[in-house]
């Protein structure tokens, strides 16, 4: 559904993405893994059109997304840190978003209910805790029932109960034939939530295949361990060079 071909991006002299090529298909869930500063967020932002790549192409359903904006009606995005206009209430924010995407087919307000946001609709954004804001972000991402969901650290900063709610929601939506791209530092979460893994290091895509294959190849049962093995292998390869 989304295919990235030879995408490179540099900020100043810093090369953040080095010729990345990957395909994301509907029905799958992709875990985007890598150390801090490896280019995960930049890759996500490239797909969303917030960062314009220096070279390469990004296609969605066979059409380039560069300079386009309509394709985003099929995407729900949950940012790492959600900040909203200070004096806006939660209710106003949802209303505004519904206004902005007025032509969306159906509204999925399930997370609003399960997070209990419907009870605090009159609260202003600047009075909310970081966790509550994350809940708002998550609820927004799922609100328009999009085909593609891009979640940047969806479980960070959430209380355990909320983590379970969002996980359940993701698993439920995966059944509904959607495409997920998820980054997280919590490997156990990704283990539960994704079918494929992309491992990025220093702007280079090192591993891109199904998690089952990864585990089989490394002989590990857990995703975390398997990734650690890949990292070590990669380090020794670099040392050899």
């Amino acid at each position, binding site marked *: 559904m989304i295919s990235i071909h030879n995408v490179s*991006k540099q*900020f100043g002299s810093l090369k953040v993405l080095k010729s990345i090529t990957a395909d994301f298909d509907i029905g799958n869930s992709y875990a985007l893994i890598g150390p801090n500063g490896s280019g995960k967020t930049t890759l996500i*932002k490239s797909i*969303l*059109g*917030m*960062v*314009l790549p220096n070279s390469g192409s990004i296609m969605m359903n066979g059409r380039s997304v560069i300079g386009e*904006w*309509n*394709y*985003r*009606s099929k*995407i729900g*995005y949950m*940012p790492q*840190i*959600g*900040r*909203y*206009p*200070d*004096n*806006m209430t939660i209710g*106003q924010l949802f209303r*505004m*978003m519904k*206004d*902005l*995407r007025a032509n969306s087919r159906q509204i999925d307000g399930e997370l609003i209910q399960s997070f209990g946001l419907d009870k605090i609709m009159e609260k202003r954004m600047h009075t909310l805790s970081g966790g509550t804001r994350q809940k708002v972000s998550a609820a*927004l991402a799922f609100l328009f029932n999009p085909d593609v969901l*891009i979640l940047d650290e969806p479980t960070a900063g959430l209380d355990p109960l909320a983590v379970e709610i969002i996980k359940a929601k993701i698993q439920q939506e995966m059944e509904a034939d959607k495409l997920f791209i998820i980054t997280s530092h919590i490997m156990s979460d990704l283990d539960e939530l994704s079918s494929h893994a992309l491992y990025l290091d220093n702007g280079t895509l090192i591993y891109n295949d199904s998690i089952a294959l990864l585990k089989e190849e490394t002989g590990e049962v857990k995703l975390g361990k398997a990734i650690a093995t890949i990292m070590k292998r990669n380090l020794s390869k670099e040392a050899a060079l």
Partner: protein
Amino acid sequence: MMRIVKYVALDILRNRFVVLYTLFLLLVTVTMFSIEGNSDKAILSLLNIILMVVPLVSIIFTTIHFFNSYEFIELLLSQPINRRSIFLSEYLAIATALCASYVVGVGLPITFFNPSIDTVYMIISGLLLTFVFVSLAFCAAVLTRDKAKGIGIALLFWFYFSLIYDGLILYVIYSFNDYPLEKVTLALISLNPVDLARIIILLKLDISALMGYTGAFYKQFFGSGLGIAYSIGMLGLWAGLPLILSLRRFRMKDI
């Protein structure tokens, strides 16, 4: 697009700083008219403050607000909305909110104290200045990603138009004092929105007679319909050009 404007403008209008700004303008205007018996004098004293404060607040507030709403812009960018709409919405929202402050803080009270043509010019000039400096703030904001640097650039803009530019004009007058400079200075004034606004208001006031031959020359020019159209057009250009330039940059910008 207007939906975003509506929500963002409503948000800004509830901003504590904007409320303070409105109250400050209101206080200054009412005070000026209370202590100065003569309304011309009051407008003149008010003029000094407005020419200094309106650009400063507009440019600094806008720059800070732009950086503070970076994440929100990010959120909007993840929605099916094009960048131009987002940018122009932010612009219109801030400009509308600051203009509303100005109208409440200055426009309404001076209309109440002194309903005359001077007042109309005062209000129009102030509103145009707000638009101009909001534009310049967007310029400063898209030039860098660093908030401190952005505010620095914004301050520099303000400093340049409020002070440095006039210093340069004075230097030009000093250097070429033996030549007739009316036309040259007229052209130079058009290149600075603050000067332009100041001259328009001064010439509208009775006080312009004090400005001697130069004043008479300017009055002849700015007094005509063409001159008024020209000055409003120039101020419009000063609001439009930086906006277009910053929009072009924003469309290419990585958020």
